[in-house]
């Protein structure tokens, strides 16, 4: 088991190396050259020349790459041209928000998606089934940012049920511990702060959950349908087991396997969606900052954040791969 993990981690290295090379090339190709990545577009010609010399851009590529990698490994990602703070700092400050949002979206997508998919499969051919399938097809086809705007317009601005922006009402004056607002509220027992943070997560969470929800419904439904036709479910029925036991131990335990794998693959769409959703709701997370840095041409941030996100994404995929061997006994390495 341990060897398996190590092997997978080692397989990761060439991919990461390749990524770093791609990033390095990407950096040098950015309009304005690598010095833009450090100075942004506003550097004067002198400072740019200084940087060029400083960076040793006249030196052979391999040496430049070496320096680049050294910087990366030191986690020195440069300084934001818009906020003048270190990129790493900006990231650490904002990522809790995105994590809370992503977790909320996942809870909604899984909590609604799996039961809905299961019911659609059980009541195949009836209204619920057609509605679920149709709904999920439409859900995939709605641009996330548009959905976010619609939700905001109707439920926040019009009906006033939910706040229309931000992570928390500043007038509450919540205490910061971890920067995970909900967690902070719970830790400091400031229940109103925690509740307010949750309330701010609802609308963006729903918008972000739309595509994962649709995908989960479809996959769950298809998987349950397939399992329901399997012989071992018939065996379970022939044993006279109660419907609840058959559903839990025989149907779901098998049907949810492919669903679990797909959840890992949803990380990508979640991250992409976060960029869009956070922007619409002015939700202070990584995504919104990435969007800002695009319009600000804040290349250090753009590059740094994309790198970190890619790294996280790769690790998440690895975790999902590994967890699969825990879930499915047939895959377990002896």
């Amino acid at each position, binding site marked *: 088991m341990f060897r398996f993990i190590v092997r997978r981690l080692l397989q990761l290295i060439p991919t990461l190396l390749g990524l770093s090379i791609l990033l390095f090339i990407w950096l040098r190709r950015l309009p304005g050259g690598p010095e833009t990545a450090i100075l942004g577009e506003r550097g004067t010609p002198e400072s740019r020349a200084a940087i060029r010399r400083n960076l040793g851009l006249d030196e052979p590529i391999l040496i430049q790459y070496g320096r680049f990698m050294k910087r990366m490994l030191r986690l020195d990602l440069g300084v934001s041209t818009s906020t003048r703070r270190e990129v790493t700092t900006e990231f650490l400050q904002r990522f809790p928000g995105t994590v809370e949002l992503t977790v909320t979206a996942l809870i909604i997508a899984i909590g609604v998606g799996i039961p809905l998919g299961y019911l659609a499969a059980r009541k195949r051919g009836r209204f619920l089934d057609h509605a679920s399938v149709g709904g999920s097809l*439409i859900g995939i086809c*709605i641009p996330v940012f548009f959905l976010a705007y619609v939700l905001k317009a109707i439920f926040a601005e019009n009906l006033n049920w939910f706040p229309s922006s931000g992570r928390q009402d500043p007038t509450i004056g919540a205490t910061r511990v971890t920067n995970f607002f909900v967690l902070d509220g719970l830790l400091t027992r400031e229940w109103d702060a925690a509740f307010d943070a949750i309330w701010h997560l609802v609308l963006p969470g729903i918008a972000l959950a739309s595509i994962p929800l649709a995908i989960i419904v479809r996959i769950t439904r298809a998987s349950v349908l397939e399992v329901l036709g399997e012989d071992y479910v018939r065996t379970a029925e022939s044993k006279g087991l109660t419907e609840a036991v058959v559903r839990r131990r025989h149907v779901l335990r098998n049907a949810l396997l492919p669903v679990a794998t797909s959840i890992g693959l949803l990380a990508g*769409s979640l991250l992409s969606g976060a960029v*869009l959703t956070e922007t619409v709701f002015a939700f202070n997370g990584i995504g919104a900052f990435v*969007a800002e840095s*695009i319009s600000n041409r804040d290349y250090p941030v753009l590059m740094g954040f*994309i790198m970190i*996100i890619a790294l996280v994404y790769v690790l998440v995929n690895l975790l999902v791969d590994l967890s699969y061997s825990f879930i499915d006994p047939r895959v377990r390495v002896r």
Partner: protein
Amino acid sequence: MTITGGKKREKLDRLAELSVRDDERGASLWQEAFRQLRRNPAAIIGAVILTIFVLVAVIGPFLVPYGPTDTIGIREGVVKSGQGIIPGISGEHWLGYDHQGRDVFSRMIVGARQTLLVGVVATMIGLAIGTLIGGIAGAAAGLGGRWGRWVDSALMRFIDMLLAMPSLLLAVSIAALLGASLTTVMIAVGMVSVPVFARLLRGSMIAQSGSDYVTAAVSLGVSKRKIALGHVLPNSLAPVIVQATLTLATAIIEAAALSFLGLGNPDSATPEWGVMLADAQSYLGIRPGLAIYPALGIIITALGFTLLGEAMREALDPKLRK
């Protein structure tokens, strides 16, 4: 003996007639699939939507009442976006004016063409590059021996790197390199779909390399290139077409997202539904229609492609055919 012989033959003829049934007549994969599709309501809806869309896109621009970039409203003094005045549906302007005084209806029609263009070009880019890489990798892995497997490995590593980023961020990175324009969006979205096609074709080629007919062909001395191009490739066509249809749907949506982020054409003169949708966000309070029309256009078109694509996938999947 003759009498009994004749009677036996009669009996056998009757038996032979019984054994030939309608459903046993051989049908190619495509004919079978088409027949199944014709009966599938989802496929029909999808096909209808697409036909309308393509017709509008191709013929529509010749029939529009106003020029899509003609800022009539401002000239007429009817549209004052700064003050929050944008007239809506009227007899002359079926969908009203937009924030720059242009006729929305005309822009929607012309936008159909632009949107179709974006979707098709992006998908074509992804398909061309993806199938090239995937095809080489798959052929190498299946038919090339040790050297082939090495080539496959290397190519797949490259593909994995493209997959190592969430699609939107990959698109953003590419777009950042190329500067903001519609072409950039097309290329960026296209590149995002490269890994999908590559994986698909490679998988198909490898699966077929192990099949009996390929082994037979190889042992007969047929050149590997002829096998790859003449037999394996055509057989892999079906899933690629299905995927292309589905990719078209997502391409349009992702292009809209990129425009929303400001990576599309900064000059919003050229109507494209994604760009129109992005521009309309600021005027949601005044005239939500400006966002709703292009959004509906995108959603319905993407839905059409998805319905058709999913139906095609079911029809062509040998496992599901019963």
